[in-house]
């Protein structure tokens, strides 16, 4: 029997593999969903687990939580072996599946919380204080007595998150938590997760197609492609690997056709100009040259009237990583 480990990584996998058998008419095919995955996440981290549909993200989550049995490889979550220790592990992990509900469909929302508190054997005091904390932070007040089936998607997702976090899990796994939500609901949910992590030191593992989630919530990204890790590091680092730079656009007071000398700064490329040199675009690597340095260099040649900075589009970055690996 392994014990719940408070130190060491909260998630650790070595050579994790999972295949599925797919029936193709009468023939059977083996599809590899996860292949040789090595993952290590420390307590308190917030990690974005990204990749295209079918890259193996959900399958990984299901192996981390003991739902699916790995075909091969090793996995430890909170120091436990997920499959044999599933029920013990469930007390330390909260999972939100954006596409599946863990609430009791026909019952008022608050009854799901009561049942979950009982399932997790929370003491009445603990359950009450945690519940009111979540109700306040996620603004659940207005629909606590409404049956779950009558909630709007935004309301339901907030209730889902509360349900997953009621037992104060050390590790929270969110599988596409903002799918289908409007901008305001997304924003609220992200703010809640930031606060939760700040106050309770919760570890977050997030799969998403919404790069806003990753940008606002995660310190680190793990990009999976065909079941194995294609990139691991910061979001800025991911952009850099495929040369997706930030872009500075400046409008000048007077046309200056030739600003090529500015492009000699490290990591800066002159992308071109319009309006006979009134507007110029520079792509630059933020790690090598700061915006301030770039502007200083520019103002030596011309008077800058206006400027705009574009961040690299992360989905575009992911696409480029995939293209480079094919």
């Amino acid at each position, binding site marked *: 029997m392994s014990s719940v480990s408070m130190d060491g990584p909260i998630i650790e996998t070595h050579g994790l593999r999972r295949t*599925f*058998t797919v029936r193709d008419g009468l023939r059977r095919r083996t599809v590899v*969903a996860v292949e040789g995955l090595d993952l290590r996440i420390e307590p308190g981290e917030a990690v974005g687990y990204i990749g295209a*549909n*079918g890259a193996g993200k*959900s*399958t990984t989550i*299901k192996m981390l*939580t*003991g*739902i*699916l*049995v790995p075909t091969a490889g090793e996995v430890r979550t909170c120091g436990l072996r997920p*499959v044999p220790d*599933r*029920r*013990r592990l*469930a*007390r330390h*992990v909260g*999972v939100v*599946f954006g*596409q*599946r*509900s*863990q609430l*009791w*469909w*026909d*019952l008022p929302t608050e*009854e799901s919380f*009561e*049942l979950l508190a*009982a*399932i*997790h*054997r929370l003491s*009445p005091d603990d359950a009450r204080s945690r519940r009111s904390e979540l109700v306040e932070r996620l603004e659940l007040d207005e629909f606590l007595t409404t*049956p779950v089936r009558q909630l709007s998607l935004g309301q339901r997702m907030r209730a889902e998150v509360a349900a997953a976090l009621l037992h104060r899990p050390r590790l929270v796994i969110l599988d596409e938590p903002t799918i289908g939500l409007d901008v305001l609901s997304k924003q609220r949910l992200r703010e809640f997760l930031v606060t939760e992590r700040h106050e309770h030191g919760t570890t977050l593992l997030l799969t998403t197609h919404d790069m806003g989630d990753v940008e606002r919530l995660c310190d680190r990204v793990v990009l999976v492609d065909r079941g194995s890790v294609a990139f691991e590091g910061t979001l800025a680092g991911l952009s850099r690997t495929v040369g997706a730079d930030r872009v500075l656009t400046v409008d000048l007071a007077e046309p200056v056709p030739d600003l090529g000398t500015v492009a000699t700064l490290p990591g800066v490329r002159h992308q071109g100009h319009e309006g006979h040199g009134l507007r110029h675009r520079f792509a630059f690597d933020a790690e090598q040259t700061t915006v301030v340095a770039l502007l200083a260099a520019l103002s030596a040649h011309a008077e800058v009237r206006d400027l705009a900075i574009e961040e690299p589009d992360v989905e575009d970055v992911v696409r480029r990583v995939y293209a480079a690996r094919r």
Partner: protein
Amino acid sequence: MLVSARAPILLRLVAAGVRQQTAYPLAALAGLVANVTFGFLKVAVLLATVEAAGGELNGYDAGTMSAYIWISQGLLGSVNLFGRTEIAERIKSGDVVVDFLRPLDVHAAAVATDVGRSLWALLPRGVPSVVIGAVVVGMAVPTSVAGFLLGAVSMVLGIVVSCTTVYLVAATGFWLVETRGVQILYMVVSGFLAGLFVPIGLFPTPLFAVASATPFPSMMMYPVDVLSGRVAGWDAVGLVAAQAGWLVVTAALGQQMTRRGRHKLEVQGG
């Protein structure tokens, strides 16, 4: 709140099952209408048969036959002879992953919720059906308080055995994913062997032996026999013991199938 906040979790799941079902009163009413309609149909056929046999048929007289009809019709809302369950749907759709994320025994939790739903149906479907039968047609009842109590135990056991047995149909989904074939087979066999259409006491001996070797009479026939007082005393205790035996067997099988099925579980995507 039907049970206290400190009650064991399985009891709370039973209560949640009850609560879920109360959300659909019209469905219960529709079920009752159907049960009572078919009850009168059975009255017409089976009481005529008893009469044609000279007022007594394999131990059934008009009173015990009427009791058989109305109690079995009343149990139809609570005893699952269709084979469809929520857990089967959840295994097929993959929603069962949520059940595996809880610190619960997935099998026990599913059965507990199902028992709650089934017990609830006794109120809007079971009781009215029996009352209508007793008032309109008249029926036999146990002659002692002990008989009533044993009947109640037998009825609850029948409902639980129905839930643990029908869970086995759902659990084949771990291997098959689509369980409709198994479910239809279950539907065809279970009603007949549970004694829904005619009491198994009227079966020819070989068929009676087949029925007795399955859990199906435990779901409906035995509770009906004990509740109507047709079987009493130690014979009734014997039937209840048989029910308990089937409960143990089907529950153990459900545990095994869930344990092994988990390793076969394939929830792809989402």
